[in-house]
């Protein structure tokens, strides 16, 4: 087909086609929807239960009240859902494509290869979890009595987007290393268990781990920093740090992908 459209329009149209195709493919497994809804609700119930153990005697956890901690748990649930909607179907696939050599065909397509490997697939099964996470954030906000103004909401949404961008970059960087190491599927499992750290306020961890999860593995920026913004107690410093980190992470993922492609020697060579 000779589509002469250039620029963003072409990418938008491609994305629409990609996602309608993968939606049609996923609809073959409708029973999965029921299982995923049940699994999401059970996971959330378990997470709430475990969190409630820390508040059994009315204490605070790392200086956060129960309602405030709900916002953190909600954001973490949302990111889990996001991972199963976009990150796992695409970046998990990337590892397989390197293993069996079908990445060659992707690289030949007249479209940006990072765009293709990051957004080709879309799985609706993470949506229930995203919705539940979003709902829990709202519940936590309303019950904690936080009333963020329009500026606060805007800042929180920006930080939320930064968190998503950082998570994507971490996943992408790990998946892209499969070009060198081929089998890194388990590395993404390590990342998944690390993201579990963000279920609780970072201030609940001992100081050394707090530093580790803020400065070395930026888990704090995924859930804690946006939660602080939603609760109306963030500072310009954290906003700037989060935005800067997201930008650096995205640039790193781009540079690494280009370097990886220069080293890519196809499956049989």
């Amino acid at each position, binding site marked *: 087909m000779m589509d002469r459209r250039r620029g963003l329009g072409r990418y938008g149209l491609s994305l629409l086609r990609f996602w309608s195709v993968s939606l049609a493919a996923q609809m073959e*497994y409708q*029973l*999965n929807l029921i*299982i*995923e809804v*049940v*699994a999401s609700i*059970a*996971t959330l119930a*378990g997470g709430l*239960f*475990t969190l409630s*153990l*820390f*508040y*059994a*005697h009315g*204490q*605070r*956890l*790392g200086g956060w009240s129960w309602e405030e901690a709900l916002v953190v748990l909600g954001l973490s649930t949302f990111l889990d859902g996001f991972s199963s909607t976009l990150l796992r179907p695409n970046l998990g696939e990337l590892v397989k494509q390197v293993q069996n050599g079908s990445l060659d065909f992707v690289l030949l397509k007249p479209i940006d290869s990072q765009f293709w490997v990051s957004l080709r697939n879309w799985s609706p099964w993470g949506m229930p979890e995203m919705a539940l996470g979003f709902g829990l954030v709202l519940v936590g906000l309303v019950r904690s009595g936080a009333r963020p103004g329009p500026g606060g909401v805007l800042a929180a949404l920006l930080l939320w987007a930064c968190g998503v961008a950082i998570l994507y970059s971490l996943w992408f960087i790990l998946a892209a290393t499969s070009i060198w190491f081929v*089998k*890194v*599927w*388990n*590395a993404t*499992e*390590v990342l*998944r*268990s690390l993201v*579990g*750290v963000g279920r*609780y306020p970072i201030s*609940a*961890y*001992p100081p050394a*781990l707090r530093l580790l999860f803020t400065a070395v593995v930026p888990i704090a920026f995924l859930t804690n920093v946006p939660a602080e913004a939603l609760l109306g107690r963030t500072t310009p410093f954290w906003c700037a740090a989060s935005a800067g980190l997201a930008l650096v992470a995205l640039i790193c993922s781009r540079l690494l992908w280009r370097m990886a492609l220069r080293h890519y020697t196809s499956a049989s060579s």
Partner: protein
Amino acid sequence: MNHQRSPAPEPTTRPLQRIPMRRSPLRIARTLLVSQYALMVEFRAEIVLWALSGVMPLLMYAVWSGAPAGAAAGVNPQQFARYFLAALVARQFTVVWVIYAFEEDNLLGRLSPLLLQPLPLAWRYWAAHLAEQATRLPLVAAMVLLFVAAVPAAAPPLDPMRLLLALLALHLGFCLNFLMQYAITMLCFWNERVSALERLQAIPQLFLSGLLAPLELFPEPLRAVALHTPFPAIIYLPAQLAAGGPIAIGPAFLNLFGWLALLLPLNLLLWRAGVRRYAALGA
């Protein structure tokens, strides 16, 4: 190693000697374990990463040791340290992945030759799990030593009786987890994608096994319910035995044996029905 060769056809008039058909179960077990171990050593880099993804108990220790709720419930930091270190070890040696191996073998058509062997398939996967645990052993030892070096209070009390019981509970807990997952795996004969069902079992297991918090911190009605499920036998029982914490040993083992007694015949039944169904499909 198989030193016994089948006798070559000799040009003598002597009647062909039959190969002894009796195979000692010990030899089968040894061959299975050794060959599976060799396979697993090939994947040691992956197993390292996988073991690292099991550090959840250490993170939970980090949160619990500073949480005021733990002290209020009467659990002191040393008990937390001992419990979560033991839970880390229990987690590493009770992990089961048979359903993913089986699903892949089934989808890729590797199952048919395996089914032809005169050995129930479960033994092969069981041996693979034991071999994988052996590959993990040095790594887990290093993790334990590092943790004890960082938090000396975490060193378990030296009570040989309880440590032995903990080892027994650990292996039985693994067998229980294996049988639970294998029962779901057998449903593969009816539907190729049953790992989704496995998720539904893994979620209550995560929250009720004691991986995230020792069960004595659970509120009362829930604690009693949790203790009757098979899940605490997988982490809580071996961990609490090794850590020297408070646990009703008798009832916990009774629960463990009860579930084993239930799952063993269930597995046999499902296996027999499933294999018959598989033959029908392939015909």
